[in-house]
């Protein structure tokens, strides 16, 4: 039972990170109908910037708590600028181009960001340590440390904040309007370009937070870290119903749980025939099964027959 409880905690922590990154995918998709494949790399850049800023601030004798806060803010600011630029350079000129054109530029942006990061921060792994110790708490037989608790709480707060923003602010209303019908929104006086920029910046700020949290949790950063994380988060977004904010959260947490329970129990369930090496297979099977029965994901709206 302790083991099971621990697996749930593992899944929740991992799932919270997926959810935060998935939000970035889903917001952009909801408004533009576009998969921002470069989003995973924005997470990586966020982590790298946070690392550099944290080291510099600590070296400048800032108090640890301030250093952490400021480095996170710097990372968010840089990522917002990055997200804005990516949209302006790689996506906006292609707004009326065939649908796959921005997909290719997104892949191009990914490759560029990855290799830029490699040139700036080097090929090796870097240590990412918070300037205070993270104590472990024993909950029954299971263990959870401060950073992990922090991740789950921050993820929850951000999700709540985002829901509020989308449903109760002017910007949020404009975003929903553009998602619903861009032409009509324009006629109603919504500045589509501004809304799209804001969306990208918001998503990128979340990516920076996610990058920070992942790095703090695992203690290492590397220029290659964004790819897998982005892929998993994208899967999570689709599982929940891409374009739907609640869906991204649900999908993220579910994927985290599926992975940890899958890796933990798949061997016992299949009598040792399939082991934890089939963890991803298990996750994809669940995804395919969900999509076969609900072709728009768990919380996705039923699409009109003509997409």
């Amino acid at each position, binding site marked *: 039972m302790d083991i099971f409880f621990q697996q749930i905690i593992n899944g929740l922590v991992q799932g919270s990170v997926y959810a935060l990154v998935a939000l970035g995918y889903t917001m952009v998709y909801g408004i533009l109908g576009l998969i921002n494949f470069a989003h995973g790399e924005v997470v990586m850049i966020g982590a790298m910037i946070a690392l550099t800023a944290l080291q510099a601030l600590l070296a400048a004798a800032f108090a640890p708590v301030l250093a952490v806060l400021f480095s996170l803010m710097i990372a968010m600011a840089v990522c917002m600028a990055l997200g804005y630029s990516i949209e302006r350079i790689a996506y906006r000129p292609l707004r009326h181009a065939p649908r796959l054109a921005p997909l290719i530029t997104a892949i191009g942006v990914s490759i560029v960001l990855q290799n830029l990061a490699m040139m700036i921060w080097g*090929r090796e792994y870097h240590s990412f340590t918070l300037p205070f110790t993270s104590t472990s708490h024993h909950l029954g037989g299971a263990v959870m440390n401060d950073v992990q608790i922090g991740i789950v709480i921050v993820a929850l707060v951000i999700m709540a904040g985002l829901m509020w923003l989308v449903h109760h602010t002017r910007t949020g209303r404009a975003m929903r309007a553009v998602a619903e019908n861009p032409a009509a929104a324009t006629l109603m006086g919504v500045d589509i370009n501004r809304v799209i920029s804001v969306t990208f910046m918001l998503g990128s700020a979340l990516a920076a937070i996610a990058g920070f949290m992942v790095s703090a949790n695992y203690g290492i950063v590397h220029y290659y870290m964004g790819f897998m994380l982005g892929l998993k988060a994208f899967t999570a977004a689709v599982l929940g119903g891409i374009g739907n904010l609640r869906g991204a959260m649900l999908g993220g947490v579910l994927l985290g749980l599926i992975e940890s329970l899958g890796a*933990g129990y798949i061997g016992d369930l299949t009598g040792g025939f399939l082991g934890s090496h089939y963890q991803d297979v298990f996750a994809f099977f669940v995804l395919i099964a969900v999509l076969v029965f609900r072709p728009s994901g768990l919380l996705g709206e039923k699409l009109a027959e003509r997409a």
Partner: protein
Amino acid sequence: MLNRKFALFGALVIALVGCGKSETPSTAASDELVIRIGAAGPLTGPQAHIGKDNEYGTRMAIDDANAKGVLIGGKKARFELLSEDDQTDPKTATIVAQKLVDAKVNGVIGHLNSGTSIPASSIYFKNGIPQISPSATAVKFTAQGYNTAFRVMTNDAQQGKALGEFAVKVLGLKNIAVIDDRTAYGQGLADEFVKSAEANGAKIIAREYTTDRSVDFTAVLTSIKGKQPELLFFGGMDPQGVPMVKQLRSLGMKTQFMMGDGGYTPKLIDLAGAAVEGTYASLPGVPLDVMPSGRDFSQRYEARFKQPIQLYAPYCYDAVNVMIAAMQKAGSAEPAKYLPEIGKVELDGVTAKLAFDEKGDIKGGAVTLYQARQGKWQVVQTLGGAPAAH
């Protein structure tokens, strides 16, 4: 209009290729013998830092030889390095191999991984170019019947055997859990470790898996925790080793942790912090401090490249020196002439006393075990192999 653009593009392409072609080195003075050594490994991608380390090791050996002045067949030799990026991709590896052959290299140091060394080896074999891999450990690499393939590193079977014996006989651990990263290296080493541990009377109570891209191992570790092993062996590299050992400790597990050569890196110590204390890792060969030239090598490496040795640089250094020794013996840098001499080379390298068996594997295959104590890798003991020349 369209056609003009294409023509322009074509011209550009041709110009670029032309640039590539003009890479040929400056003509040497007539009394000088120019010898080209190819180096191949991943210089981009997730293993780029280890690939670069290999290139540095090779470069140092070549620069040393040039500075020292080596005579081959009475002529003064000047060595040149051609380094290529194989991206850890088998297909790119064959392209790179073909390019090195085209460039008329006299020998190749590489590739880093087994998955690239094996497909590339057939091209070197067809063209009679000697290839010494500093780090490919798959048993198959030298078992393909190619007389051009050598390695200065123990293979998985040699290292796995030593690790298994050490775990069971020396440490006395009987209940063992094993994780591997499903790469050719990780899986190969883990399988050989399991064989050896079981042969020595241990029980493998859990076998779990991860990937070489993962950073979260809490799920498999938690599942292992329930089975309470005394030792966890991980077949994989340090990027996974660091978060794994951290998560192992943060889950409150007291299980001993052991890795192969993929774990014996300065990074594992630096990045894993307190969690790494007590971890075992192995490295083929004898400790650098034991060989007379080893300590000198590591100091010069750090001074020159402003970083500690990552992993296999010393093996690359040895590989080049084996090649040079064979050339000197044959009195020629012609691949066909010095190839038969490589197998007969006996050399005090920086990693071990080097000699090859008939397959091209390293003879004896000493493996040294290290333990992380007080933030440093400390030698525990060296198993097997020819006694080092003191």
